[in-house]
């Protein structure tokens, strides 16, 4: 398994390099530069800023210097938050940036994953029951009603009307401040997990080997826990990897509604401001997370599916 992991990590290096190269050139050829604004800078000031950020060099030189910085663990300096290192903005010493989003994602996943799997499994086992219908319809409902709607609704009900919880902000990362954003994310992700689990368990239970096991007279419990659980989890796990990476870099709407100091707002601002270094950093971070989670998913697959091990 270790050999497999190392092989996967080595393969992902060229992938990452390709992403960096592509994004670097795409970002730099987009019209407009980070220092264009309503107030046009004087030519001297612009020249000096371009030099400070190495934007006066030929593109290939900028690219090589960027790679060099990246290998040394630096994402460069922000062009929007003048003089602030990107590393410091993304991974601040105090609470903020990636750490906020990470906590948000972990809390969400810790609750949504077991809850979703249990609900989905129960629904699959009791196909066409009222609970099954609830799982299916809530998946449709929460896919159609995005966090952009559930978020403000939760704020309206719990914060503005009943004054039970704060309307936004991070506070000290306490439960009161985290409750609503985590709830909204759970509402967004649990139904999908449950729905996929449900579909998977129904498929597995209809498969030939389970029918054979039944025919052999094995007790239902044994069939479920010995034979059905592993193949049921396979599609769920392949869903969870990208989902976790997705929340980490993509909880933009939730973070904006609840005014949390996470990565989301940094991401949207970076693109409009042409903060080249910030766009690069966030894309690279997103890619690394996706790659890592995919490797984890593959490893879990190996554990769950003996066919892949061979």
């Amino acid at each position: 398994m270790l050999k497999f992991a190392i092989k996967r990590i080595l393969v992902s290096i060229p992938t990452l390099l390709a992403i960096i190269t592509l994004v670097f050139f795409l970002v730099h050829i987009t019209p407009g530069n980070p220092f264009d604004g309503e107030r046009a800078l004087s030519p001297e000031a612009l020249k000096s800023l371009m030099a400070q950020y190495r934007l006066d060099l030929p593109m290939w030189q900028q690219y090589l210097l960027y790679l060099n910085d990246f290998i040394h663990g630096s994402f460069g300096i922000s062009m929007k938050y003048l003089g602030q290192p990107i590393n410091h903005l993304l991974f601040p010493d105090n609470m903020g940036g990636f750490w906020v989003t990470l906590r948000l994602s972990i809390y969400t996943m810790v609750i949504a994953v077991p809850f979703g799997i249990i609900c989905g499994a129960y629904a699959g086992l009791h196909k066409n029951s009222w609970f099954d219908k609830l799982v299916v319809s809530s998946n449709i409902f929460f896919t159609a009603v995005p966090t952009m709607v559930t978020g403000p609704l939760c704020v309206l009900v719990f914060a503005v009307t009943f004054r039970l919880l704060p309307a936004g902000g991070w506070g000290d990362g306490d439960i009161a401040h985290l409750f609503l954003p985590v709830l909204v994310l759970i509402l967004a992700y649990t139904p999908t997990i449950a729905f996929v689990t449900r579909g998977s368990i129904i498929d597995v239970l209809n498969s030939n080997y389970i029918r054979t096991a039944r025919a052999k007279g094995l007790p239902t419990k044994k069939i479920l826990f010995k034979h059905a659980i592993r193949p049921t989890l396979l599609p769920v796990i392949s869903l969870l990897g990208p989902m976790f990476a997705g929340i980490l870099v993509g909880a933009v709407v939730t973070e904006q509604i609840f005014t949390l100091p996470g990565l989301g707002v940094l991401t949207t601002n970076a693109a409009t401001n042409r903060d080249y270094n910030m766009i690069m950093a966030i894309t690279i971070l997103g890619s690394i997370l996706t790659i890592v989670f995919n490797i984890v998913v593959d490893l879990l697959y190996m554990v769950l599916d003996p066919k892949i091990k061979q």
Partner: protein
Amino acid sequence: MLNIKKLTALLLIASISSLSACSKDNTSSSANKDKNLITVDNGEDAPTIDPVMAQDTTSARVLFDLFEGLTSFDQNNHSIPGLAEKWDVSADGKIYTFHLRDGLKFSDGSPITADDVVFSWQRLADPKIASPYINLAANIVNGNAIRAGKLPLKQLGVKALDAKTVQVTLIHPDAAFLQICAMPNTATVSKTNVTKYGQTWADSKTMVTSGAYSVAEWVIKGHMLLNKNPNYYDAKNVSVKQVKILPIVDFNASFNRYKTGEIDITSSLPIDQYKGIRQDYPTQEHTVTMEGLYYYDLNMTLPKFRDNPKLRQALSMAVDRDTLVKNVLGQDQVPSYSYVTSTIENGKFADNHYAWGSWSHANQINEAKKLFKEAGYGSNHPLEISISYNTMDSHKKIAMAIASMWQQVFGADSIKTAAANQEWKSFIQARNTANYDVARDGWIADYDSVDAYTNLFLCKDPLNKSKYCNPAYDQLIQQAQNTPDPDKRATLIKQALKIAQDAYVIIPLYQYTYYRLVSPRVSGYDMDNNHFNHVMSKWYKLN
């Protein structure tokens, strides 16, 4: 279905209770009763807290708390003594001698001296630092040569005569110079602090400040916490001990947090709820006319505009500003028929507007039609025109409204309009390089000087987006700048403005407004005459 029913019920309950529980004006919405802490929304994080690098209102809002210059602003935007308690001006209006207050100290307790003031001005003029407001030093002796890298910084016309006296020598007299001395960009920083930390000096942890507050904590996208600076010269009159500044981008989120009492002052309002909020919070909501103009540039590098003054005039006259302001926008903006606002320099240029602005709408339309025809356009030779604007709902609404006004006045077969919607940075680049027909534009004055607007039409000014150039105009403006007599200066400026206005190179549309909610527990903040939106936390008091 069960779920939908439940949710509908929940929605109903929520909306009914929100209607009944809506904290209206007379009820205090403040759950936060801490008298030492005020929480204000600033709409975004300050991109920089280095005074010379600031170029936006978000940074300025924070910097007005952290730093102070030789002068300061009162709530009516008049310049008042700051670090300097008094000053003398030479008879020709070119030499200012500032006398600093006794016992001035930075937030770390070190003394503020004339050297620090000189150092701060030199930073502003330093081409290596690349201040976007470097032009504030352009009128100081040698400022331009230093900016171009031709002279060393120490040659700048700002000198320390002794530890408490600073002398500034200007190239030509400037009625607004005391205002410039109150701008955040010219504020005094600690030479020791900046020299010690170099490029990273503006780090909230090590930064030393000269204003009423200092930074206690800064979480980007989270909050900035300011503590009262006990060493500030007027500390005894600074009432609120801590200020929490939030960067809430979403106006709805900000409004919700205001309703729950988490925020005492918002940065703006959700536009779509503007009328409702005004009704529900009549004493907490404030709408203030801002010192800035919204206008359309006509691209003077294009022959169709450059060679056809009648067309330019017709397009300007055909826009019904009253309808635009009342029905399309509806936030109390003031229709504009002039290249300057009627409020700048206490209304000195209020009479400087198009005479036809006061005509009846029917007469305006008739004249516009006549000019359009004389310009050579009609159904047999339709005008094709595209309106460029950056992606934003309000810009789109305005562009649509103006296009339909033109079509109504000139006839749909005589003018073909297209809307060219662009993303912000691409738009800026297109507009700066005159790659447009008609472009949305706007300018907000930084301080109370008509120069803010008159500079927009100078041949070589980078802000001149219509690329209009008339040496006669430039000459009059230059003459006005060299005139110490204020009345004579005003006359020259009016003459110049007449030339530019009669050239119809922009279409002035309206004067901006800004709006925010102020909690009833806050007093001392009188924003209704604050047209420049300069805000300082030292004014606040908490009840």
